[in-house]
């Protein structure tokens, strides 16, 4: 399930849905990304997130499908917000349920790493001086490549 929205999301609701997967679920791993005060700039007051409607959903669904082929997972939910976000706002949620924790951790981290470098979102940091389009980090690119190097678990 992939949801792109301007509204905030409710992690309680998402967690409740993940728990409904059934008695085979032994592990729920969740990641939430929040707007931090230090990014490329040191005095971030908010973000503006632009995306490519249609392609975004396709790319993220593709990452979920890849994760499901590589690891044994029972459900995956990804939500990403776009538009204007304030400091400490929730940006992105990835929730995975699986029988075993190692599959859940790997799938959750893979989806986040690959989303960062392949899903068409662009983040503009808002500071007192104005807006600054964030540069992609080499470390993010390396994290995604690291998953390609690894043989499936």
């Amino acid at each position, binding site marked *: 399930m992939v949801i792109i929205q301007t509204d905030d999301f409710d992690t309680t609701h998402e967690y409740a849905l993940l728990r409904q997967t059934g008695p085979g679920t032994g592990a729920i791993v969740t990641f939430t*990304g929040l707007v931090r005060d230090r990014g490329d700039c040191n005095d971030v007051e908010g973000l503006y*997130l*632009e*995306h*490519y409607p*249609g*392609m975004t959903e*396709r790319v993220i669904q593709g990452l979920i499908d890849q994760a499901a082929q590589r690891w044994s997972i029972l459900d995956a939910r990804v939500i*990403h917000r776009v538009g204007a976000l304030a400091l400490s706002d929730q*940006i*992105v949620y990835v929730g995975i349920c699986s029988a075993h924790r190692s599959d859940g951790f790997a799938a959750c981290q893979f989806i*986040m790493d690959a*989303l*960062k*470098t*392949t*899903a*068409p*979102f*662009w*983040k*503009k940091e808002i500071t007192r001086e104005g807006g600054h*389009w*964030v*540069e*992609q980090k080499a470390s993010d690119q390396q994290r995604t490549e690291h998953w390609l190097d690894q043989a499936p678990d």
Partner: protein
Amino acid sequence: MNSNTMTVSVLFFARLRESLGTGELQLTVPSATTVDGLLTILTEKGGPWSQLKGGAPVMIAVNQTMTTTSTLLQDQDEVALFPPVTGG
């Protein structure tokens, strides 16, 4: 448009959209134009358009799938040009 030309839409996002001053163009180009050929046509507009070749890296998606400059375009293709992505 005739059989020797085709129409593609070209989308721009983020820093590229802002610096080019547009988010979308409809272009009629010769049949069998590649993405690289399209970029050449666009850079000929001069000014900020020249950044599309030899400037900061430009990512390319055709019909919402990432691709490279050698891709041959088809009539009605949706081409998107954008900076490296920074979501999450």
